[in-house]
């Protein structure tokens, strides 16, 4: 039987923006199983990034429950949440968000600084991750010396270097050209298929969504429908 790694129940997120009360997510019930590749789709403001942030423990829900890897995120304090993110989550941003003054290797090594690994071990792990994304020959390059596609691959290496249980990607192809987007999606697919990683990806792009095994549609903060990907 497949184990559920993400389970939300009546998950709601509300906030106040410029005096307006905004309901970003309303009563979302979603289950994602171990080893799934799920795409979250929907128009801007539909709540897909908010849902991703809640799964990543980057934000707290207003109400409802969220259980990720059998951990109720509502029960964690700020410090515990930070440690939990470091151990279990690999997050990929749309705009890469690499530290500009650090080389590719140093960027990938960054999450490992929070672990008990020795410097040599950290370098080995970071090199492994960079080799996996095909950038073993760019380790000393600064982000500005890399193309957009290469930057995103460094960001993917950074996301997987701690060997997380979940890989969460927020529009990972949004800033990439078609070829680079294809490379990034292929990498995510490989991580899911060959390494058994559970991947949740927010995207606008139906082509990107086609790499997923399941597509969840959101609209105005509500989970509308779930369907197998066109590719399945």
């Amino acid at each position: 039987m497949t184990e559920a790694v993400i389970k939300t129940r009546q998950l709601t997120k509300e906030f106040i923006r410029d005096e307006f009360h905004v309901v970003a997510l309303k009563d979302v019930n979603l289950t994602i199983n171990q080893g799934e590749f799920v795409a979250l789709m929907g128009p801007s403001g539909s709540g897909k990034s908010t849902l991703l942030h809640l799964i990543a423990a980057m934000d707290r829900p207003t109400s409802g429950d969220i259980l990720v890897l059998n951990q109720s995120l509502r029960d964690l304090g700020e410090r515990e949440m930070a440690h939990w993110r470091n151990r279990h989550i690999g997050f990929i941003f749309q705009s890469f968000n690499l530290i500009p003054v650090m080389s590719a290797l140093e960027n990938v090594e960054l999450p490992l600084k929070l672990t008990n690994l020795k410097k040599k071990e950290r370098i080995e792990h970071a090199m492994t991750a960079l080799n996996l994304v095909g950038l073993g020959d760019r380790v000393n390059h600064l982000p500005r010396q890399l193309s957009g596609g290469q930057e995103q691959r460094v960001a993917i290496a950074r996301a997987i270097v701690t060997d997380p249980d979940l890989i969460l990607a927020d529009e990972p192809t949004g800033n990439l050209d078609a070829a680079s987007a294809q490379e990034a999606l292929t990498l995510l697919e490989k991580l899911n298929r060959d390494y058994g990683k559970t991947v949740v990806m927010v995207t606008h792009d139906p082509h990107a969504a086609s790499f997923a095994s399941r597509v969840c549609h959101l609209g105005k903060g509500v989970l509308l429908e779930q369907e197998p990907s066109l590719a399945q």
Partner: protein
Amino acid sequence: MKVINYLPLITKNSFRNRRRSLLTIISIAASLCLLGLLLTIYQTFFYSEVTADQALRLITRNRISLANPLPLSYQQRIKQVPGIREVMITQWFGGVYKDARDPANFFARFAVEAEKLFTVNPEIKLPESEQQAFINDRTGCIVGRKTAARHNLKTGDRVILTGDIFPVKMELIVRGIYEGTTDNESLFFHYKYLNESLSAGAGFKDIVATYSIRMDRAEDANTIAKSIDDMFRNSPSQTKTETEQAFQLSFLAFLGNVKLILLTICAAVTFTILLVSGNTMAMAVRERAREVGVLKTLGFTNGIVLWLMVGEAIVISLLGGVIGLLFAGGLCLLLRGLPSAFTFADFSRISVPPSVTIICLLVAGMIGLVSSFIPALSASRRSIVEALKFTD
């Protein structure tokens, strides 16, 4: 949190915006150079260690002011106080050497009792033959090594001093060049020659500005000073007796409350640089708001993020502090060349002492800490989602 793990990140981030970091370092360096120099001068004025010979000397002057002389007759009465080895007349002459408009021509000139000078001021060293030549020649004088070098004076040269306080022109012959431990710049000549040169009706004859006293033991300084002052308490010319160091500091008092002035400037310098750094650090932290969100997403706690940012500010401030102290050390070398008559203290060996180095580095560290703490705290506490909304 292993600080060593984050040092490369801290140092690299410190110089992310090189121009701004450089300007911040320069402004902190300039301020801490000034602070270091002022504190060094303060220490030299008020806390420099006296030599063993200085500790054995007292100066007696008129209680009202230096402008009011003491009678010549006091010398014998002072000599009778137990614990005193010698009492010497020391008369500030002043005068003009060559051209008064050239500051290089200004050096201290004293009329003294030559035969007692080497007992009261044993640190004045010169060959025995020159010493005797000076003592035996009523018109002779001795000159400190630095002043002699500055004016190319050597034994046998004539020195003419035109009095500006005393209405007399002193024609002197250099009989020796002395080397002193605390003073290498003064000129000493015979008080007897000065006194005899003055006409009786001018009002300057047989008067003394100060008596230099050599004691047997430094521990008796307070007792002897009190005994002397008590002796003349009911006289028309009351005395004030103090250590040589206190006497020298009294000249400084002519400038006002120098302690307060120096400390006020130090405080103002520190406060100003705090504001400048605070503004810069706030800007630097704000620019990095999005990066804070990224770091926290990777698992960095609020505490680590806070100290990373504070650490960057401290690195910049300490670097500024070190550079400032190096410049302060350089300025001290320049001060060493100033004639002591201009500096009110012995600056011949002035250097930034370890205590001032420690204070300045602590101040630099505090500037980094205080200027960055509030913006860094605020940034570290911002939610990840809010932080990620910031655009560069």
